[in-house]
């Protein structure tokens, strides 16, 4: 592969992955190996895995829809690409809405970023993920805007492909965060 845009995105994603690994490690450290016992809310006492799972399904599915958008562009069907882009953006927005419900639920219980280690690590981790989803949405919106103006009609254009990789990455990060923060609660 010698396309500079594809390579650039791959290395950007690798670098971002390390950033998220550091934040996830901090969560795991304070959650599973706390250096000292602290009182206050925990993941088990505050989080609702069921509701977050439903909203997560939208983000997981959006990986499929963005893949369809990419394929449609390669096949030269701009109409279908726009459709799948709109669906992807919609799913992303629904996921963010779910996140905002989760956050306001925690705020209403009096749990914030300064409450204790759970609050600090949880809001940092999900907050930075949310920022990345938002950036992905902005990029998808730009792609959609360009598509509506008739760009990407040539099959060789890599813009949609590159943005879709970023979106898959944001999705994959959420698979890991959801597993560590929510799913493991059910097992314990």
């Amino acid at each position, binding site marked *: 592969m*010698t396309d500079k845009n594809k390579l650039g995105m791959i*290395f950007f994603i690798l*670098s971002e992955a390390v950033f998220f690994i550091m934040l996830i490690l901090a969560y795991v450290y304070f959650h599973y190996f706390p250096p000292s016992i602290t009182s206050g809310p925990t993941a088990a006492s505050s989080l609702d895995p069921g509701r977050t799972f439903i909203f997560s399904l939208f983000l997981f599915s959006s990986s499929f829809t963005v893949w369809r958008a990419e394929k449609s562009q390669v096949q030269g069907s701009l109409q279908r690409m726009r459709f799948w882009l709109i669906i992807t953006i919609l799913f992303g927005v629904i996921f963010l809405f779910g996140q905002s419900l989760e956050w306001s639920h925690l705020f209403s219980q009096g749990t914030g970023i300064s409450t204790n*280690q759970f609050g600090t690590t949880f809001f940092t981790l999900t907050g930075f993920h949310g920022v990345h989803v938002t950036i992905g949405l902005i990029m998808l919106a730009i792609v959609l805007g360009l598509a509506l103006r008739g760009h990407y009609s040539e099959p060789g254009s890599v813009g949609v492909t590159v943005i879709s990789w970023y979106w898959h990455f944001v999705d994959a990060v959420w698979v890991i965060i959801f597993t560590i923060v929510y799913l493991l609660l059910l097992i314990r």
Partner: protein
Amino acid sequence: MTEIPTAAESAHPASEAGEYTGLLGWVSSVDHKVIGIMYFILVLFFFLIGGIEALLIRIQLAQPRNTFLSPTAYNQIFTMHGTTMIFLVVVPTLIGFAVYFVPLMIGARDVAFPRLNALSFWMVVFGGLFLYFSFFAGGAPDVGWFSYAPLSELPYSTTPGVNYWALGLLAIGIGTVTGGINLIVTILTLRAPGMKLRRVPLFVWMVFVNSFIILFALPPLNASLVMLIIDRLLNGNFFTPATGGSAILWEQYFWAFGHPEVYIMILPAWGMISEVIPVFSRKHIFGYGIVAGSSVAIAVLSFLVYAHHMFAVGLGNPFDIAFATASFMIAVPTGIKIFNWIATMWGGKIRFTTSMAYAVSFLVLFTIGGITGVSFAAVPIDWQVEDTYYVVAHFHYVLFGGTVFALMAGLYYWFPKISGRMLSERLGMLNFWLTFIGFNMTFFVQHILGLMGMSRRIYTYPNLPGWASLNLVSTIGAFVLGLGILVLLVNMAYSLRRGKVAGDNPWKAWTLEWATTSPPPPHNFDEIPPVRSQRPLWDLVHPENPDWKHAGD
């Protein structure tokens, strides 16, 4: 710009570089050479500031119980000196050289993402300005360049200095990552026809490997910075033990960045040495593959040695032994390189230009810094000398005797290409000797001071036997060193106007950047010579005996 340009204007190089001229032309430029030169101006500016800070430190320490600086001012100045020299001088200089020379050396028109290139540069500029704005906003950071928690946390650092430190470095960190991505993609996709990865100049190889270290080492810094910012601005609980946080976590995260950073600061310098020594020895580099390959080994190992900064923490024997072993191991590929360079000079026809003088003294000084570095891998020695002037002497031998001497070699070597004029050799040798003598006077005695027990970062010291005289020697040395740098500035100012015109290839070097004019035109090359070996310009001049006729590449 509605006026139609005249023929003369459209022939002017500036109009090819961008649509603006003058200062705006510089600021808006995305040409890798213009951005490279802006990096040089930026680092020169911060190098002078960081140097003045160093002199202030040395004045304060010139004699026992000195009262030249207050303790607070002293803490701020050594913190800013370290932060400036690492993040605003050494790393941006190396990236500046890479941005300027990598496209020329691989025969490309520009970097892969010219606008991203400009973004990287301006992030560093504004990060630096932000950091220095702290002086006007309640005091500069005063917790050392690695800002250990909990000292860097709100209860112990109530002024906003650390906030500026963290946010400024975050901006610089983002700029560095994007710079690294840009260089990797440039080297992978824009090489001239025939230039396989095994044929690129070693400077490009080192930049390539180095960019991967940047890619994976800067995110831990950025992550620890945002965590520190969350602690300080949003009352988070990452690093404050009093509320259940972990101060050790900061050390782990910071050094996971901090030690690879050491290699980020030396690898491109090795690349410069690998260009300069062959050209001034009139010999091909000895063991191209070994020099390139050992850099990959170093890049991998550099992520596995960081906790030798933390032996004094008490993480336990298994932990200490693992990191001690890796730290011993990394000395092997490093030592191999030294032998490669010596073997390159062996039997060569050495020309002792200023550039070569710097390169040769690099070998000596860097070896001294390397040996003291290996001594830290031995845990008991580390415990004995941790946080003394022995450490200060060690890393100045690595970063000044190593990196800065290599940068000087690179500057004297490439200045003709950048400016079109030669630096004066007479002033150059004066600059070299003052710098060499001043540097060794300043820092060699600090080894002894450290072994005698003088702690780093203390603003003054009692009049113990020998301390006063050794510190005075160090301070005098620092001023000799400062004089040496002053001569360099004079040399550059003089040579830019009156220097001998360089021509395309004043050193009779063999890599592609010398195939174009000095300075290169905005489009870099009118014609790229065929690349059939590691030394395309040698092949061009010696058609009867080209490199590619011999075995290998």
